[in-house]
């Protein structure tokens, strides 16, 4: 419930979470300068799955869900 600031450490944690559970891949080659960033896209995907407000940005509600204990199988995608 209390709103707290999102720190750089939280952002790094969120990126690891998205890589692990929402198939966020490292960008390689020339970086894309325009359009929605892959992190924002995956955040939106995650927020949609968990019924959170879809903002595409890391907020305290999203972070709280990421920090909950959970199953290790990726969400919404199929791990072969």
């Amino acid at each position, binding site marked *: 419930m209390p709103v707290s600031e999102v720190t750089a450490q939280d952002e790094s944690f969120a990126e690891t979470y998205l890589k692990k559970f929402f198939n966020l891949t490292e960008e390689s080659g020339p970086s894309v300068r325009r359009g929605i960033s892959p992190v924002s896209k995956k955040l939106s995907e995650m927020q949609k799955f968990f019924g959170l407000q879809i903002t595409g940005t890391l907020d305290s509600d999203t972070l709280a869900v990421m920090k909950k204990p959970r199953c290790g*199988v990726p969400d919404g995608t*199929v791990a072969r």
Partner: protein
Amino acid sequence: FSTFENNLKWQKNSLTYRIENYTPDMSMSEVDDSIEKALQVWAKVTPLRFTRLYSGTADIMISFGGRAHGDHYPFDGPGSTLAHAFSPGPGIGGDAHFDEDETFTLRSRKGFVLFMVAAHEFGHSLGLSHSDDRSALMYPVYTYKNPDTFVLPQDDVKGIQSLYGPNPVKNPFVAEPQPPPTPDACDSTIVLDAVTTLQGEMLFFKDSFFWRSTPSSRTPQQSLITNLWPKAPVSIDAAYESQQPGKIFLFKRQHVWAFTGSDLVPGYPKSLTSVGLPRGVKNIDAALYDVDSGKTLFFVGNSYFSYDDARKTMDNGFPKRLDQTFSGLPGKVTAAFQYRGFTYLYSGPHMFEYNLKTGRLYRVLRNNYFLHC
């Protein structure tokens, strides 16, 4: 619910399992019982049958391990990932691994109930992927549930039966428990258990769930009550926001719980007499805190009480009959709250908008008016 790609499933109904090792957190018999019970969750609603092996390779190999444990998907230490399982298939397919760095328990809230974690993982072993239904066993986030009263939710039953069909063997002498349905906020006939504000948000309670409506979002978020308040009761009678920031009171039968944030306030739950209600009151129907007068109103049957928060006493002249103050109410109040100076009283599927000072009724609305359906 969702299944894996191509509806991956076992091509046989008789499956074997083997417990390769044990966690030191529980006795061996507790682990055996938890695993057996978790498999039976799925066997009860499908034609699937499970046989335990004590050696060799079983379809579902079950093990406890920490960090790197031989499958290229290392665990991450305490917290976060609790376990994982592989979809049906030969070799590692169907196998379930539990993170030994977690503390597993038989039924305690301190630690993770092995039965709940295992039942979820075996869902993967049998072909179910994650569900976005928060009440589902296959929802990816761990939620405490009492294993003794657990009933497989409807979403999971539909999911597993889409792969294997229903259980052909039913005992006609045993009534099967009904899976708990997930309430629909947009059902115009829904009768809410309680409604309250909390730090600018509106909370709507029904059964084990609540919807949270924030000023910035038109779509209410559904959540399990115990996700936000792990020590709270479900199917509550009433709720109201205290004048103290972030504090909420939840009522069920003869008790009241107070929470600050997610934490239960020490000393709670207390009896209804602690808020000044007479001993004869067995439960309340609704409650609200009136900001202007500093009074808390408790609705009980066809009457209501007024409690003075400053003096900590019930006001004289109460209980009063509802129709002495609120005209047009068809029956008892089922939920109540104040918002932007108006008092909203719910009675069945309708909501009545009042001016509390004058008792004037402004509008009669559907109960999902604030749920933006």
